[in-house]
């Protein structure tokens, strides 16, 4: 097939990033389990990371890549996603302890 002999460009990576981003966005919108929403957030951030690393790669675009900036932004996104997952999980577990459910449809009152 053509793809097995021809080199891969930035556009291929962007398509992969788009699939992961849309999958994460649909996951955030449709899941009723609060942990499912958190998994959607992780997918969105990884889709964006794939884009950043693709633009910073010197193999995919030898002349016009953004170099190390792409990889550094991806590193910061990974670290911030880990921090945000920790806090979101603490909130979810608190909600579970108080209401005995993780259904986000039951989280419709502001009172804790």
């Amino acid at each position, binding site marked *: 097939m053509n793809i097995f002999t021809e*080199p891969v460009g930035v556009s291929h990576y962007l398509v992969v990033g788009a699939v992961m981003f849309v999958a994460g966005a649909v996951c955030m919108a449709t899941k009723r389990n609060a942990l499912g929403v958190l998994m959607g957030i992780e997918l969105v951030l990884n889709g964006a*990371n794939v884009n950043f690393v693709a633009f910073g790669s010197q193999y995919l675009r030898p002349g016009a890549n953004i170099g190390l900036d792409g990889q550094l932004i991806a590193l910061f996104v990974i670290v911030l996603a*880990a921090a945000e997952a920790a806090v979101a999980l603490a909130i979810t577990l608190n909600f579970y302890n108080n209401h005995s459910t993780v259904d986000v449809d039951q989280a419709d009152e502001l009172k804790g």
Partner: protein
Amino acid sequence: MEPINWHSVFFMLFSLVACGFSLAVVLTSNIVRMAFYLVIALAATSGLFFLAGADFVGAMQIMIYVGGTLVLLIFGVMLTAKGPFINMKTAAGEWILATIVGGSLFVVLLSAATNVPSWQALDERPAEAQVTATRLGMALMGARVDALEEADPVTRRGLSGYLLPFEIVSVHLLVVLIGAAYLARPKKRARGSADSL
């Protein structure tokens, strides 16, 4: 017969695994299976990072994301996966709406990704491989050793390194750790609801 481009073969493998298991995360309604499919999808994106030349980011993806964040998510799944919460189905109307909106977003992103001429594949490839860990470490300390020969003086003014974001992220991590530990502290139940953990 042209020679096989192994870079493209591995790219197709990793990207099919990543995209396929990302879609599996969306389509399944079992929370434990979602967590496992997410682990595989993120490990495959680490392979994609290695293929793009970002070896340090790929290693950090496996160590921090798969080995840290997803383990945390699996802890949360295991603590809350009781009975009716394992399989929670979404209504069909919501699926239709989400498919329409998600599909249109995907069409927009796909057309943007494939129609820019400067993003298409090039035939020549640089020969030498670079280890990125040293350059990343020096850039985080404020010395951009990857752009020492930058000729444009306007661009040179912006190459001051990433020391400030590094410090900001460090303090952010400290704040998050303290906040999460305080939020997740053991406390007395307000009212006797379901069984205690």
